[in-house]
């Protein structure tokens, strides 16, 4: 009796093992991740709500003309509340543009912002470094190459003058901060300007672009507009659609459980 019970137990055990192992082996392999959906046609840019008023009771130069995604001053969130900045460098890290030997340093202040965002300390306060070194302001791609060689020879970076919006999106997709030419015509400038600012948000699918202007570095002085409106200002008045970006790693996202 004892032997038969033992025998049955063992046979049962072997059968159970065989069955469970078979289940394991025949379990279908995990399916490969689904391919990303094909890029839909970008929707028409959403019309932003009325912009926040410009500082002071005086009207913005473009008051009433912002329909169709024209520039509107705002904070970290788009005027319709749908998107937030990708490159949200705190106001405490954003110094105002200065001049070196009578020429503005917008290009180098923009690089300063990108350096602070991506932590390239050699380029912090780049305009002030230029002033100290006796290098005049006024930037163009070849001069940026020279300045990078001198002040941050180890830092990798890209520059592009093709005006190709794909490159802007590729830079922002990876969380890096593009520095872009910008010709004004917004709530800060009534006419044409020659300027470089940082592009804190640009996405043709959400229909929003946002710049951080080194002439207006305060907390709520971002300028939101439609991507098309931004592209006009990026390429306008000889700016030519020039973009600079550091390749260093951007900061981590805020932690959560």
């Amino acid at each position: 009796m004892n032997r038969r019970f033992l025998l049955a137990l063992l046979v049962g055990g072997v059968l159970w093992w065989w069955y469970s192992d078979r289940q394991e082996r025949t379990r279908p392999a995990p399916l490969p991740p689904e391919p990303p959906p094909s890029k839909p046609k970008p929707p028409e840019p959403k019309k932003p709500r009325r912009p926040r008023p410009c500082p002071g009771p005086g009207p913005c130069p473009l008051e009433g003309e912002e329909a169709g995604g024209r520039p509107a001053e705002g904070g970290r969130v788009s005027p319709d509340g749908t998107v937030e900045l990708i490159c949200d460098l705190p106001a405490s890290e954003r110094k105002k543009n200065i001049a070196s030997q009578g020429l503005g340093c917008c290009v180098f202040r923009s690089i300063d912002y990108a350096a602070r965002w991506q932590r390239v300390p050699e380029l912090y306060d780049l305009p002030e470094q230029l002033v100290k070194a006796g290098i005049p302001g006024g930037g163009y791609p070849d001069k940026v190459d020279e300045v990078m060689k001198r002040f941050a020879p180890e830092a990798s970076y890209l520059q592009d003058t093709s005006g190709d919006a794909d490159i802007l999106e590729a830079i922002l997709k990876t969380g890096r901060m593009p520095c872009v030419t910008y010709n004004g015509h917004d709530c800060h400038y009534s006419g044409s300007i020659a300027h470089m600012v940082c592009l804190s948000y640009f996405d043709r699918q959400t229909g929003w672009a946002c710049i951080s202007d080194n002439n207006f570095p305060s907390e709520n002085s971002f300028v939101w507009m439609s991507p098309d409106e931004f592209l006009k200002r990026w390429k306008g008045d000889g700016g030519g659609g020039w973009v600079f970006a550091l390749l260093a790693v951007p900061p981590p996202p805020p932690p959560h459980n």
Partner: protein
Amino acid sequence: MRLLFIPFALLAFAAAATAGYEWRFFPDDKDELVLWKDGVQLGNYRVSERKYYPHLAPGVWGAPCPPPYPPPQDVVTPGKIESDGIINFGLDRTRVNPTGKHLLDGKEVSKEELLQALGQPRLPDDSQWPSLTIIGPEMARKKVLSDLRSSPILAPWKERIKVQDYPPDHWAVKDAGFVTAGQPTIYCQAPDGKVLHRQDEYRGPQALAEVLRKADPAYQPERDPDLNKSLSSVPLWVWLGGGILLALLWKGEHK
């Protein structure tokens, strides 16, 4: 104080007149502007100080405060008005040509190569990589960074995680919800910010590699190949049971 004796008669022209606000300049003093509204002087802006002084009453000036209407940009920012009327804040327009060039570290490349710099092989499209963030005193951070660079056990992670390090008081971590008191604190986060792992001291490259292996979103243990599966996967108790069974059967036959 010069502000107290403003020669109103010398005000030359209106620079901006919108909604009643009007900035006026002194022909003999480029350092000061006056803000008018409806025939009343509201205050003065001193360019060299970038400060606005409200005019409270004749001869009485308030402490500096933001002006109620923004001063003209070419005055308060380092812009230069060029011959075609464009205010230039720092571009050399003659040399910023829309040449269509793609440049990487100063060398001309194709668009594909430029995009590759944000993708493989130099800097992968790392938007879906986990972030490894080291927060602490410099020496403590350096040890981890050094191991990440040189330890063979951590080598497979070099091109698969985004590494940043910060002192505890850095803006990127101080008020962003990170614990910054570790020696160092090491975070491993998913691309959406979810904390996959946190430790408040460094436990060496072996332990860090184990953390990274477990945190790797692409890692699926069930897909590990096991070339000896046919033999090694049979549990010991099955071997023992089978042996006893055979022994009993053999014994039964011989009875």
